[in-house]
Each structure stands twice: as C-alpha cells, then as structure tokens.
C-alpha cells in the first residue's frame, strides 16, 4: 500500500517540477531573448516580470477549447496528452542522486529513447487531426526530422553504452565519479576512480565521446524541434506548425511537452556524458572536494545545475542561429552527423578492446 502512495507522490512531484520548470524556462527564454537583442524582456507582471508566465498560464486555462469542424475529434484531443505523457514518462528512469531515481531500470537508456520516440506519433496525430494544411506540413516535417535525427543521437548514445557496458542510467552515472566500483581512467591512461571530479566524466574518460556529445547535443536540438532545427514550427512559414489549431489548455500541453523535452534531452546528455549527479570538483590530495560534494542533496544540485546550463545553451543557440532549410537539415543529419556517429561507435569498440581492456 505504502509503495503505491510513494509512486503516486513521486509522479505528482515530478509533474509539479516539470510544470514549474516550464513556467520559468519560458520566462528565462523570453528574458534571454530580450537581453540578446538589447531589450529588457517581460518587466510589468510582478518584480522583473517574474509572474508573467504564471499570468500566461492563467489566461490559457480560461480559454475555450476550439475544435475545427472538420477535425478528427479523437486524434485532435488525444495528441497533446500523448505528446506530453511520452516526454513525462521519459523522466521515470532519470537518476537524480546516488540511490535516488524514480525507477532504476536496468534497461533505462533504451526505455528513455524509445518512449521519447512516441512523441513523433503524437505530433503526426496533432497535424493530421487538425485538418489544416499548415499543421499537416509541420507535422510531416517534424516526423521526418525526428526519425532522421534519432539515428545519430541513438548511435552516439550507443558509443557511450559500449564504453560503460550498461544501460542502467544509475550505473552509468556511478561509473563517472568517486563512487565507481570499476576503474575510471582519464583519457584511458590515468586512473581517476579515486580522484573523481570532471576528470572522471565520460567525455574525459574517452576523448572521442566529446565528439559524440556534440553529435548528440545537435540531434537532441532537432528532436525537440528547437532552433536552428525548428522547421516543424517555423513561425514565418507555417503559422505555428502542428499546433496551429490548438487553443487553451491543449496548447499549454504542447508548450509543456516542448520544454520538458528540452529538459529531458539535456538531462540525458548530462547523465551519459557529463557525469550526471557527480561533482565537478576533483579530490586534490587531502582536499577531498569530490567526496565532500557527493551525496543526496549535492547530487540533485549537480544534475540540476548541469542540466539547466545545457538548457540555457539551447536557448542562446535558438536566439543566435537562423533556421536550416529542409535539405540542409537532412544533409547535416545523413552526410555529417550519422557518419561521425558511426565513427564514434567504431572508436568506442576499439577503445573498449585495446585501451580499457
């Protein structure tokens, strides 16, 4: 009985966290956009406009559900929920601190990448169900993009899995710090299992994973439809892409899913490449910085700060780079990222066999 209540509490807690994150990610996105363009961003609602997004969501909640008369009723109403739930379920396997993750699956990574892919189905449902040409175009672009970019993303993740020999995200994280049970070698040479810090992160354990990290980061931008890969939502061409016809709370769900997706892909990158809940600070002689800054509270702090750092990079990229054309997008995916990801995978195999032994 008690564990059922715990499960429900964890689910509700995660939902509240995601909603809170979305509100303030939208706020910070608008603020960063303002600062990049020498403006102030929202300033009027609350001190420094802090309540702006809260006011926005209040407005959205009050709005009427409008359904186009020729829309497919079932697909139209299920799509936003499906998109959000697929992203939300992805949060289940993510490790937050040592021993702390909603569910410590031994196929965690596999589960996460497969459940995120369900989003593509939801996007297509939204686009098809709206019976609107812009929405359908956006949805088709989005699905083509997500399906293509899953290949470099997946293969770059596989190259990490080949190094770590585990799909359990908790175990992958533990191997990148002072709590490791096996050995961790900086650049495959220097034993840093006892030193920890950033030296034991996967990107520094095997240098080719730095390239895999860049590949994964770029493809994850495409997977959550962020600029410069935002052709599914291209405001200047397609009104709003697949969510053109949505209003009120349903539209809010699309927003929630988009920002949760940003958080989730950033968190996957952090867990697999940047040490997850492991400390940034290494042990230096008797100065046991890594030991002192590893633990329950510190774990949450490190994973959150690293993830939010990646999310802010995503935001700055959005306000810097122009949108890619469809052919450029596909060329980047198939001609650059996929071969490089395969190369990373091959190097991972060699690294595993000859360097790590």
């Amino acid at each position, binding site marked *: 009985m008690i564990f059922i209540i715990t499960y429900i509490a964890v689910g509700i807690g995660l939902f509240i966290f995601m909603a809170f994150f979305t509100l303030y990610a939208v706020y910070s996105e608008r603020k*960063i956009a*303002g*600062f*990049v*363009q*020498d*403006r*102030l961003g929202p*300033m009027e609602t609350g001190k420094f406009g802090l309540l702006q997004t809260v006011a926005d969501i209040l407005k959205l909640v009050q709005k009427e559900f409008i359904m186009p008369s020729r829309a497919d009723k079932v697909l139209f109403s299920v799509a936003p929920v499906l998109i959000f739930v697929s992203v939300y379920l992805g949060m289940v396997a993510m490790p937050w601190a040592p021993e702390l993750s909603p569910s410590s699956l031994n196929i965690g990574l596999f589960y996460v990448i497969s459940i995120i892919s369900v989003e593509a189905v939801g996007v297509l449902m939204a686009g098809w169900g709206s019976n609107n040409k812009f929405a359908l175009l956006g949805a088709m672009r989005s699905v083509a993009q997500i399906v293509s970019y899953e290949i470099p993303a997946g293969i770059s993740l596989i190259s990490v899995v080949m190094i770590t020999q585990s799909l359990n995200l908790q175990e992958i994280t533990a191997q990148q710090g002072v709590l490791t049970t096996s050995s961790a070698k900086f650049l495959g040479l220097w034993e840093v299992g006892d030193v920890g810090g950033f030296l034991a992160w996967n990107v520094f354990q095997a240098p080719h994973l730095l390239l895999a990290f860049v590949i994964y980061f770029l493809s994850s931008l495409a997977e959550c439809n962020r600029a410069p890969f935002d052709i599914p939502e291209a405001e200047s061409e397609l009104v709003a892409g697949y969510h053109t016809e949505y209003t009120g709370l349903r539209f809010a769900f699309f927003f929630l899913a988009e920002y949760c997706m940003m958080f989730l892909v950033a968190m996957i990158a952090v867990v697999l490449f940047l040490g997850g809940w492991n400390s940034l600070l290494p042990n230096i002689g008797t100065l046991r910085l890594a030991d002192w800054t590893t633990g329950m509270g510190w774990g949450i702090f490190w994973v959150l700060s690293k993830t939010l750092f990646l999310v802010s990079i995503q935001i*700055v*990229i959005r*306000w*810097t*780079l122009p949108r890619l054309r469809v052919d450029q997008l596909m060329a980047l995916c198939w*001609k*650059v990222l996929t071969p490089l990801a395969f190369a990373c995978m091959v190097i991972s195999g060699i690294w595993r066999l000859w360097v790590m032994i």
Partner: protein
Amino acid sequence: MFRKSLKAFVTAWKGLGITLGHLFGARKSRNSLNIRDEDYFDKQEGITTVQYPREKMPIPEVARYQLDVEIDDCIVCDLCAKACPVDCITIEAIKSPEPIGKTSDGSVKRLYPAKFDIDMGKCMYCGLCTVVCPTECIVMTDNYDRSFQSLTALTYEFSNMSDAEVQQRRKEWTSFQAEKEAAKKK
C-alpha cells in the same frame, strides 16, 4: 565536406560569441538618451529599452507637440481654422456691440469665442495654425502623452464661455442689430 562542417562550426561559434556578448552586456543599460549628446552614437552596448511611463526621453526645449490655446489672447479671427489642412479646428464667433478688451499684445478683441474646438484625433501636427495666428495665442506645447477613454474626449474645448453666457451675448448682439435697424428706419 569536412571543411564545410568545420566552417559551419566556426561561423556558428562566431555568432554565439556576438549573442553572448550582448547577453552579458545587458547588465547595464544606456543611461543617457539625449540625442544631442556628443557621444550619443558611441554608446553601442547595453539595453536600449526606455520604460516609458516611468522613464522619459529628453525632448527639445521648443518641442512642438499638442496644441494649446490661450483663449484670453484670442481675437477669434478664424485664421487658424482656415489654415488648417485637415479642418480640425471649429470656431464659432459672436459679435459684440463694443470692443471687449485688449489682448496681451494690444490687439482689440471684438468677438466672443462661443466655441473653440480642436479635434486632436484629426490634428496632423503641421503647425500651420500657429504660424498664421496674429496674436500668437495658439501654440504647440511639449505635451505629447495624453490618452483618453472615449473618442469625444479627444476634442479639446478651449472656449471658457458657459452656455448661459453664450445665450446672453447672442441676445445682446441681436438686440443691438434690432436697435440699429430701428434707427435706420427712422
């Protein structure tokens, strides 16, 4: 292919450098906003937003914005209404039997301004009315921010005569006319 990708990364990095520069430059804002300052165009960093109702840009000393009429100086000559290209000034005059008084520059007033309305919704701020005014009673002021709840409030009424006063002056003039007619007939 390799060179192309490398170039893409380098240019993207350059762009990110510019946006990051602006992002961190946003800690300060451009304080002096006066365009007549010597170094106005040298200030290229920081936030440019002017938080309008709380912060105002400096305006010229002889700013020419909304119209104002000093009705005591007006001789009701109707020149401004005639000069107005968009006909936003409506004047109604009542003649007076004897001179009413003098304006501050010494012109004799012989007409009462029963109505002196300027429709600011129509006004195009050309300033022609201020040029033709012989007593310089109609001027452009430095006031530019007025907003109203209704369209009718945009019509500024400058006449200071009450309805009763207008009626009385009308009666005075008609009786004066009647007297004149009677004197002629005799």
